[in-house]
């Protein structure tokens, strides 16, 4: 699922891919109403767009000063992953883009390569941040010619050719051994299964992906 993630209390943030605006989902998901009006967004994304997936940065592999921040993959007028705080704002949430002391943005990843097209950032079960890089020169709503020489020759019809998948983790922090942790969560010391796989590992693991899988 792209552009829907929740925090460690199950509160969801839903993103509008094209504008990269992000909203708290509770006020938007009540009974259907034809007169529904717009809802304030969680943060001002400073004109960066669009979003190709988002994630809460919660992982034992990441430094403490990043925990709980929000990121999304931005592919047109900013090529990278900006970071935002998400704080309580009365009933809802309000956040701000992370900035350096001189006011410049303090992004997670930022490229000067206009063809860097990050997609679908997710913290994996190993605690590292995984994302695709679509690495295509062309982007848009078919304003370009099919014969444009910049078009990726491997791009067939609507199938997007992922040039690479990136695994990004902290050098001095160990990644979690996925298999060992998974097995320990559902077996006893004699190697016998004790609970259904998946039931225990959500509780002691901070990564959201386990909850995402559990809640389907």
């Amino acid at each position: 699922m792209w552009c829907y993630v929740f925090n460690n209390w199950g509160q969801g943030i839903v993103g509008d891919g094209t504008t990269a605006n992000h909203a708290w989902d509770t006020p938007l998901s009540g009974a259907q109403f034809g007169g529904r009006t717009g809802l304030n967004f969680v943060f001002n994304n400073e004109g960066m767009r669009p979003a190709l997936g988002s994630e809460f940065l919660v992982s034992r592999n990441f430094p403490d000063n990043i925990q709980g921040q929000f990121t999304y993959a931005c592919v047109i007028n900013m090529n990278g992953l900006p970071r935002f705080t998400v704080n309580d704002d009365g009933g809802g949430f309000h956040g701000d883009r992370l900035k350096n002391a001189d006011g410049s943005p303090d992004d997670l990843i930022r490229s000067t390569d206009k063809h860097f097209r990050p997609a679908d950032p997710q913290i994996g079960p190993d605690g590292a941040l995984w994302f695709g890089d679509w690495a295509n020169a062309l982007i848009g709503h078919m304003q370009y010619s099919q014969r444009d020489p910049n078009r990726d020759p491997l791009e067939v019809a609507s199938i997007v050719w992922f040039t690479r998948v990136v695994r990004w983790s902290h050098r001095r922090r160990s990644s979690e051994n996925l298999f060992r942790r998974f097995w320990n969560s559902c077996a006893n010391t004699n190697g016998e299964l004790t609970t259904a796989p998946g039931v225990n590992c959500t509780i002691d693991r901070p990564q959201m992906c386990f909850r995402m899988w559990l809640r389907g």
Partner: protein
Amino acid sequence: MKGLKADDPEYDRLRTEALWIQQAHHQLDPDLLAAVLKAQTFDARAAAVRILSDEHQSIADAQAMLSASSKDAHPRVRTEAARGLSFFDNIEAQTALLAMTSFPADYWVDYTVQHGLGANEKIWRGDYIAGKIADLSPRAGEIVTKLMEASKSGAVALPFLQTLMSQQPKPEEERNKAMTALSDLKGDANRGREVFVRNCTACHRVGNGEGREFGPNLAGVAKRMNKFKIVQSVVDPNVEVAEKYRSTLIVTKDGMPTAGLVVSENDVEVELFDGKAVRKIAKADIEERVTQQQSSMPEGAPATLAPSEFVDLMEYLGSQNQDVAPK
């Protein structure tokens, strides 16, 4: 769960995790749910109300439990309760929603209460107008009045917007009539400004206000266009695209296409900016040259707004009659 002590710092979070696991397996323990609804941590209570709302069809006294949570001290829990109550189309649930306005204003709770009431207007409207709903707070009146105004202006605009947003294109005459009717409607410019900030500032701004200039600056737009033209530009951005925002496609004699904005041009060559670099193309080499009509503004934008929001946005844009010095 059994070994978990109430003084464990993670007590509320772990019990909430247990509820999610139970919910995913369709095995909710009603006693655990009732207990987490009264947890110390407001985020745990909010999560429990969310679960209760999503499972309300299989929980016998869900409405009574939601009504109790609608009086919670924390606005996040109340927002969840308002969402849950919106699914109950009976007068008791709607009265409980109205009663939530007796708490201090909170943007998120108010939005959710208002939309819950909006979705169920036919349930409470008669009783409200007849004065049968007792003990209303002053803010209930404000919220309901705003809601009924919006539903009235939205109801007038809706058929015209449906004509314009129809999947099957309607005849031009019918479209023009609809756009004329929409440009004659009176909206609320202040609310329209909020709609503009939320929906348009990714590409537009007015003067030095909030927003970007990927598209035209809309200061003085009412001096340049009448209301009909403003409506038309939002409904169908491709009809009239300012020269500066049109892209040109040039195919040279060797069959190579280049698309971009014309930066400069003389008798001998054209300079085209394709988003990355400026390319010089000799006029003698040009096989074909087309100025594209396509605007980069998304079509169908009005379909993402409430009808009343469209009317308010047009009122706001129609009031931008500042004098702007030509650049």
